[in-house]
Each structure stands twice: as structure tokens, then as C-alpha cells.
């Protein structure tokens, strides 16, 4: 059997209630864990885009794509390896404002990690960092030592190096 890899699945869909349930059920039924999930608008008006990260063999990946595309409201589904995509995650840290002034080290960490301060007030400041999972995890470890009031990380978002010809497909339908 082929090796287990990380795949980013991009699914172009209609924007309908319940579709998330239908899509996640395809993974759940096969006991495949969704590592991360993001939904957003896409480059095409009225078309939504799911970005799902999963770990499995390519053989199974292909079958999942078949099941996804079989859904009435799925326009097209693609899968890509990390090498074939530009991807990142984004995260937010909420940290006590005192630390920013009392711990010089924090300022260095922020500078080196190219994290961005979103807001500062008397009680806390919010730090935003976008990047690879490893970069975010490094920053998390470094800041943990000082205490993190809140942390959240987004699902992966990604664009592919190759073209995904959704507009062309939709144009064909309209003809």
C-alpha cells in the first residue's frame, strides 16, 4: 500500500446550508480525521471553497475525491500535496500587557518571529502570526513560558501552484 501523506483538499461548492455536514460525513463514515478545515468564498462569486487537510494514502484520497464530487452541490474537488500548494495558517495570542514591558525577551521574540501586534491596551495585547505550522508552534512554545491568556489557530488556507479551472467549468454549464 502506498504511504500516508498530508493532502490539502480544495472543494468548490454551492453555498448551501447543510453541505458542511454532508461533506464532513464522507470523512466521518470512513473514520478519517479532519486535521483542519476552512470554508470561505472563492475567486468565483457565489461559489464557496472548502479547504480540508487530511492524512491518508493517495489511493484512498482518490476515492474520497470521487465521493465528494458525487455530491449534488459539489462543483469540483481537488487534492494536492504540500509541495503543490502555497499554504499557511494564522493564529492569535492574547497576552498580558505588563509582560510586553517587563520581559524584554518578548519583544525580541515578536521581532524574530515576524508576528504582528494587532492591538494593545492596558490589560492585554494581541499578537497575530501567519505562517507554517512549525513556525506557529515555535512561537507558541516561546510565549508559553510567559503565560498565554488565549490562543487560537485557524485551519489551513492554501492556493495551488496549478490552475483549477472552475470558472471554465461553470462557463461551460452556462452555455
Amino acid at each position, binding site marked *: 500500500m502506498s504511504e500516508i501523506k498530508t493532502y490539502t483538499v480544495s472543494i468548490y*461548492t*454551492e*453555498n*448551501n*446550508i*447543510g453541505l458542511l*455536514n*454532508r461533506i464532513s*460525513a464522507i470523512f466521518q*463514515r470512513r473514520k478519517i480525521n479532519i486535521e483542519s478545515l476552512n470554508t470561505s468564498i472563492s475567486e468565483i462569486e*457565489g461559489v464557496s471553497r472548502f479547504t480540508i487537510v487530511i492524512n491518508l494514502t493517495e489511493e484512498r484520497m*482518490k*476515492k474520497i475525491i*470521487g*465521493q465528494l*464530487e*458525487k455530491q*449534488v*452541490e*459539489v*462543483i469540483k474537488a481537488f487534492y494536492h500535496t504540500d509541495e503543490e500548494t502555497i499554504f499557511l495558517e494564522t493564529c492569535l495570542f492574547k497576552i498580558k500587557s505588563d509582560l510586553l514591558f517587563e520581559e524584554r525577551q518578548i519583544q525580541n521574540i515578536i521581532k524574530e518571529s515576524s508576528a504582528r501586534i494587532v492591538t494593545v491596551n492596558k490589560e492585554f495585547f494581541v499578537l497575530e502570526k501567519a505562517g507554517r505550522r512549525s513556525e506557529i508552534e515555535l512561537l507558541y512554545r516561546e510565549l508559553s513560558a510567559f503565560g498565554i491568556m488565549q490562543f487560537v489557530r485557524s485551519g489551513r488556507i492554501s492556493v495551488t501552484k496549478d490552475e483549477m479551472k472552475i470558472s471554465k467549468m*461553470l462557463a461551460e*454549464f452556462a452555455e
Partner: protein
Amino acid sequence: MDNTQTIKLQDTAVEATQRLTGKEAIIKCLLAEGVDTLYGYPGGAIMPVYDELYKYQDKLHHVLTRHEQGATHAAQGYARVSGRVGVAIATSGPGATNLITGIADAQIDSTPMVCITGQVASHLLGSDAFQETDIIGISTPVTKWNYQITKASEIPEVMAKAFYIAKSGRPGPVLIDITKDAQFEEFDFAYKKCTAVRSYKPVPKLNPEALQAAAEEINNAKKPMIVWGQGVILGKAEEEFKAVVEKSGVPAAWTILGVSAIPTDHPLNVGMVGMHGNYAPNLLTNECDVLIAIGMRFDDRVTGDLNTYAKQAKVIHFEIDPAEVNKNVTADIAVLGNSKETLAALLPLLEEKKHTEWLNRFKELYQVEFDKIIKDDITPEKEGLTMGEVLEGINKVSKGDAVIVSDVGQHQMIACRYAKFNQSKSNVTSGGLGTMGFALPAAIGAKMGAPERPVVAIIGDGGYQMTIQELGTIFQTKVPVKIVVLNNDFLGMVRQWQQLFFDRRYASTELINPDFVAIAKGYYIDAKRVSKREDLAGAIEEMLASDGPYFLEVTVEKEDNVFPMIPTGASVSDIRLE
């Protein structure tokens, strides 16, 4: 959401705009889709629609089943024999959840069905209101599509889309949930049939190169074999299929849902594949050089162990659903498309052939199976009655013209193995899901879907009691179905497995049964019990000659087994004759 985006509208409206309530609009939609019969059960959240059904009694025949599950199976039976969309209707909450087994059955057996459920008023959604369930959430994994209507204005387009999706491409069940307030709301109604949905491609484009490659493989094959499934029937491709089989001279075997696409006694029909299928096609699956799969999905009951399934053969897969290609068996050539179209295109590319020697191999192996199993099944010499001889008795009277509706278990395998079929859409059974309790309600729908044909339900004593209350539906509608219960006082198939694989530990498989004849008579249905061979033929004749519904119980041998058998996980070529 804006549903109008997803539908490419036709220019022709069925009717000009008129002011209607949601409940009346639903009826108008059903009529516009050509629905004449629907199966269901009323209740609070669907009562407005029932109130309209009362007004439209002359145009829409509503059959009150005795349980919502019965409504779905009846709709399935209707759909399977008529090729039309079956319709079931129920209320919210338990009414809706009771549909789920039938919906799951229709999903796995690709049966076109539209289910309509009432829902609590939209302002109560999510409040745990009386009889509220999230039927959209519950039905999502077992429907081809589902949608909740909360505004009457959504009704025409959503209903049009529901019917289009249910019947197009690979058919399947669609559930439409309608809140009670949407049923009462007034709006401007106009109906346009749906002919396309932007994100949905029901029939893939035929690839001429794949077709050419397939034809070449078939023409060059020395030992080719066809395994066809329900795709031939669903694609209405029986004529094209027969022409392909006859021109190519390729022996053709069927899956349990494919049977009857060509007559049972067609010289190139070599029988059933799968766990309790015929000896020859199973054994020779692992000997053929080209395996041509047509409208079938390589179910595990068909293939047995995939690692040893037809490894020597080139596999050509004719299929409408791209997700089925390479799902279980890797295809060397996949020809996507509707079977009617692909087979018609294949025909002129085929050379006329006769594989006499190869076909003789099937005949020889059939003889082995006949001597070892079939003879004793259909013309037994032992004292106890066999299920096989009952089927043989029915064949003699029906001459293969009856629709056979079977339940699930030993009797189902016997029915599918031995029933004779002259015409398509004659075998109605729960293939993929294996739903006990399917047959009695499905037979009601089948008889209504094909009123001119005799419909015989073959049911075991176990499955019969799962939906036995539908005798009430039969009594009330007087639908002349013939019910044959093959009673061995056991859950026979499970008992067979216990005998073979669990050292005869018959855990909870013996049934202490009631007086089935008395029960049938309690519903004023003519009924008879037969336990002696000399009475069997006469009873079958009487049953099939009767004008109304008829119940026949046949007491059969308690511990008979169905053979041949491919044990779970074994190779098709390890098929056991005993």
C-alpha cells in the same frame, strides 16, 4: 440560500402564476411531475398537506401504510417495477425517522424516491418542539440530496429539483422537509420542471477512445465474461444490452439487482454471481481473460476477497457513477456514461462471435451444480418441503411473467436463484442494505406500479414479522398481492451461518411463531397453509388464480442450507457446493 442560482430554468412554465398556499403548491408540484400514487402516514406537522390530499383524491392516490417504513418500501417497490419516482410522505419527528431505513435502502440500491416530511413551524426549529427532529441532519448520509423548505416560495423550484435529482444519473432518494408555516403561507406559484443543476453532472461524457479500447479487448478476448447489474435496468438499456450480448457471444452473469434485464432462459445467461450465486460464473470469474462489468459496483457480496478477484482478467467497467470506478476493483478500461448510450455505441464496434467452447465450460459447471444442489432444491425427494420447490412451483404457474418481491435471507437467495423471469424490472429485493421487512410493503408498491402483472412476495417468517402490519394496508386497499411465507421457524440465514461458522450455537435464531393463517384471516385476506408436497401445486395455482390478495404459508424444512456459498472473505473460486 438563494436556490434560484443553482437551477437552470426552462422557458416553459407548466402553469401560469397563481396565488396558492404552500400545501396546495406541493400537490401541484406532485401532479406536474406525473405522480399518481404516494405512500404515507399523516401527523401533526404534515396535516396541511393531507388536507390538500383530501381535495385531490381523484388525481392522487394516497396509500395509508401502517408504518412510515412501509411507506418507503412501498414507494421503492413502485419505483423499481415502473421506472418512475416513488413518493413517500410522513410527519415530523418519529414519522420522519421511521423513513430512514427505506431511504438508506433506496440509496444503496439506487432507487429513485422523493420523501416529503412535515417539520415543526420555522420559529420553533431548534427549540426541541413537540415531534421535532433534525431530519436533514439525520438523512444527509443516506440521501442523494435533501433540503429543508421554510418559505412557501421555495416549494416549486425545490420540488422540481428533487424529482430531477432523484431520477437522473444514478438514481437515489431525495428528502424534502417542509415546515408547517411554509405549508400555510401564500405565494405566487408557477412551476417549471428542472432540467439541470449547475454543480451536478448526472451523466458523464462518453469517451470514444475508452469505448474503442473496450471493443478491441472484447473482440480479441478468448474467454470473456459479462457481469451486469441494475445499471442496465436503470438505464433502460435492456434492448441494447441484449444486442451486445448476442453479437459478442459473451456469456453474461448477473448481480442480484441485475436479474431480469434479459430473460432467465436466454442461452447466454449464465446465472448469478456472488455469495449464493451460481457455481459456473463465480468459478469462471477467476478464469476469464476479460471481465466486462456493466452497471454494477463490485459489491463485497459479489466479489468475495478482492485480492483474489479476477486478477488474471482485464477489467472493463461500464458505469454511470465515476465514484464506482476503481472503488473496489481496478478497471483497466472504464467507459463512463449511461448504459443505454454506451452499449448502443459499443454495438457497432463489436465483432460477431460465438465462444462455444468457453460457453460450454459454463454449461458443464452448471451441470455439476445441478446434480449436486439444484436438483435436490427444486425437485427434492426428501420428506420436508424445500424453498426451491416452492419457487419452481410458482414458475410453473407464472411462466416467468410474475414480479417476484423478496425479503432478506435464505428465501431471498432461493427466490433470486430459481425464479424465472421473462421481462425486465421483475425482481424487487433489498440487495445492498439487506433490509428485513422490505418485501411485504414493497410488494404493495410493486403491484400498484405494475397493476397488470402478477406480484408475488416471497418472505421468510422472520422478515415477515418486521412489517406484518402492512397486511392492514393490503386489506384496506384490496391490492391483490400474493404473499408467500416460507416458514422454517428460524432466522434461516443466520442459523445457517451459526451452523457453519459458529459450531451450531443457535443463539436467538429460533422463532416461536404465531398462526400466520389466522393473522391473515384476521385482516380478511384469503389464506392457506401447506405442509405437504401433494398440496403445494394446487395451493400455488389457487393463489395465482385468485382475484384478490392471498396469503400462502408453506412450512419448509427447518434446517436447510443455501448452497453454493462463498464464505465471507473467501475467493469467488473457493465457492462451496456443500
